[in-house]
């Protein structure tokens, strides 16, 4: 058992160091093009863009989300907003109906609860835009983001570029958990930026990824059976040799879970979804036809998820076993710890340091 754990740990060390070094090399290589990549909001044409807002029991935040869409720096007649009420049990429908009363480009679709992917597919059928974006009803988009994203499409001039992903940030982090996530999201923006240069993006975040409508329709829309449809669509796009790029300063603010329980549920869904997606697209793993995405990203994801699962098991093992031993020792001495406290000498010498076995 110990040997197995040691071997797994070493694989984890080697793999994480290797991928970090690789990413660092990519960064050093692309450093120059990073500087040239300044944000630009000047676009020649204004294509019609559809923003889909799927909402399920979001009465608290949906208006703020719609407000952020309303405030987008974009001609109103070119912007179509489809709000899909996914059978909410609260006042979402009423609030939204009130809000959109004198806004002709806002439309509300309602149906019984079918899930986020189904809601988006329904809206996708009606969407008139050349591009469409999804915006979760707990997220808020920066006014300039849409123009920045469209600039990337225009600048690239590539019909195969079908998704532009945003730079996701945490909306007003208050407690520690949210602040930690804020930091994580910021690091992920940088990693996504590097991956974007390698054509290795494997997730199109729910809040405000901008898709090319025609291609997503051709690929069959979102997978209604997948728990992380935003990852699945990205993998599918990669599989069909389309491109995904990131807009490094196209900011979208999303509400991060404040408490442990919803946080755990969100992560569980993400990671479980990742494993399912990697399994579903296992043909891409180490497939040379997919360049760096197949050779590096898919292998990394596969390793990452396997290692994180084993990592959690090992962590539990490493915490539980000493805890158990500690408890057993306490029982043996009948919880009488005062001789230990009495004799407690805080003597840390160089010898102590040398006697510590770091491999344990």
């Amino acid at each position, binding site marked *: 058992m110990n040997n197995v754990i040691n071997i797994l740990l070493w694989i984890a060390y080697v793999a994480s160091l290797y991928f970090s070094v690789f990413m660092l090399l990519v960064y050093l290589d692309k450093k120059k093009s990073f500087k040239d990549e300044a944000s630009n909001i000047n676009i020649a044409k204004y294509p019609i863009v559809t923003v889909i807002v799927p909402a399920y029991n979001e009465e608290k935040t949906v208006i703020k989300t719609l407000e952020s869409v309303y405030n987008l720096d974009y001609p109103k007649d070119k912007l179509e907003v489809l709000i899909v009420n996914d059978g909410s049990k609260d006042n979402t429908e009423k609030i939204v109906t009130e809000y959109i009363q004198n806004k002709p480009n806002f439309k509300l679709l309602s149906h019984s609860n079918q899930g986020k992917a189904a809601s988006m597919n329904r809206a996708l059928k009606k969407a008139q835009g050349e591009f469409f974006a999804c915006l979760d009803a707990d997220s808020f988009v920066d006014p300039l983001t849409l123009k920045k994203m469209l600039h990337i499409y225009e600048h690239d001039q590539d019909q195969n570029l079908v998704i532009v992903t945003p730079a996701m940030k945490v909306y007003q982090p208050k407690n520690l958990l949210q602040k930690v996530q804020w930091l994580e999201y910021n690091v992920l923006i940088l990693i996504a930026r590097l991956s974007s240069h390698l*054509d290795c993006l494997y997730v199109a975040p729910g809040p405000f990824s901008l898709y090319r409508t025609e291609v997503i329709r051709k690929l069959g829309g979102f997978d209604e059976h997948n728990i992380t449809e935003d990852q699945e669509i990205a993998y599918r796009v990669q599989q*069909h040799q389309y491109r995904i790029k990131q807009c490094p300063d196209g900011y979208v603010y999303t509400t991060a879970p404040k408490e442990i329980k919803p946080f755990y549920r969100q992560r569980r869904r993400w990671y479980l979804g990742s494993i399912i997606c990697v399994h579903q697209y296992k043909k891409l793993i180490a497939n040379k*036809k*997919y*360049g760096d995405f197949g050779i*590096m990203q898919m292998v990394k994801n596969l390793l990452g998820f396997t290692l994180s699962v084993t990592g959690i098991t090992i962590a539990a093992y490493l915490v539980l076993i000493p805890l158990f031993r500690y408890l057993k020792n306490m029982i043996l001495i009948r919880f009488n710890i005062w001789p230990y406290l009495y004799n407690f000498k805080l003597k840390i010498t160089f010898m102590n340091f040398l006697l510590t076995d770091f491999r344990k």
Partner: protein
Amino acid sequence: MVSKMRQAAESEEKGNFRKISRDKYIIAGIVTFLIFSLGITLGVILEDYRYTAIEEINLEQEVKYLSLQSQYLYLSSFSNYDNCPILSTALKETMEDLSDSLSEVITSEEEKKVSDTRKRIIMRRYLLDNLRYWLLARESKEKCNLDTVNILYFYSVECPSCPNQGTVLTYFKKLFEEKLLVFPINLDFRNEEPLVEITMSQFNITKYPTLVIDNKKYEGVVRKEQLQQIICNSLRQSEYCNSLPSES
């Protein structure tokens, strides 16, 4: 069929933006290898340094033991003096040193089998030291009538209940401090060290853990209450024994 082929050709053509950054993979591999070899080299150097330090401690203890033995010999050859107070203080001092530095060795050793040759030699030396000290402690207890309890603790790394006994012993060592002298003997060394075999046959040790407290043998794990009673019965006075009802 044709459409499928066309589709394949199309996707092939579409995939031409894909690149493989081969040089980066190779460089990353080399850098990773370098970092790891550097780390491993550093680890080996540190390990080496560690053993040197442990050997130094062992040497120091050997000199201390020699000094103690000489003191003992010297004093006992002039038996008309009351030399016991001097001897007992000297013994106490040395014992404290020994238990301090070496209790760490036991705890780390209890957890895994020793395979490294160098470590085995060090452990064997530690074992011999323990036996010698035990002999000395026993003798000085008899001659000088010291108020101490000597415990020989036979254990093996493989035995599952030995750590429990170790915990209880450590607890009493902390409680009674210099009045209790514990000498752990690792029976895994009996093939290498004949002295272990001799001690084992003398006390007729057949199972682990076994405690020998002042020449009496206790097999199996001795629980906290029981051990406290045994210790208190052989100690003449101690503040921790007063609360016991069956004190004799």
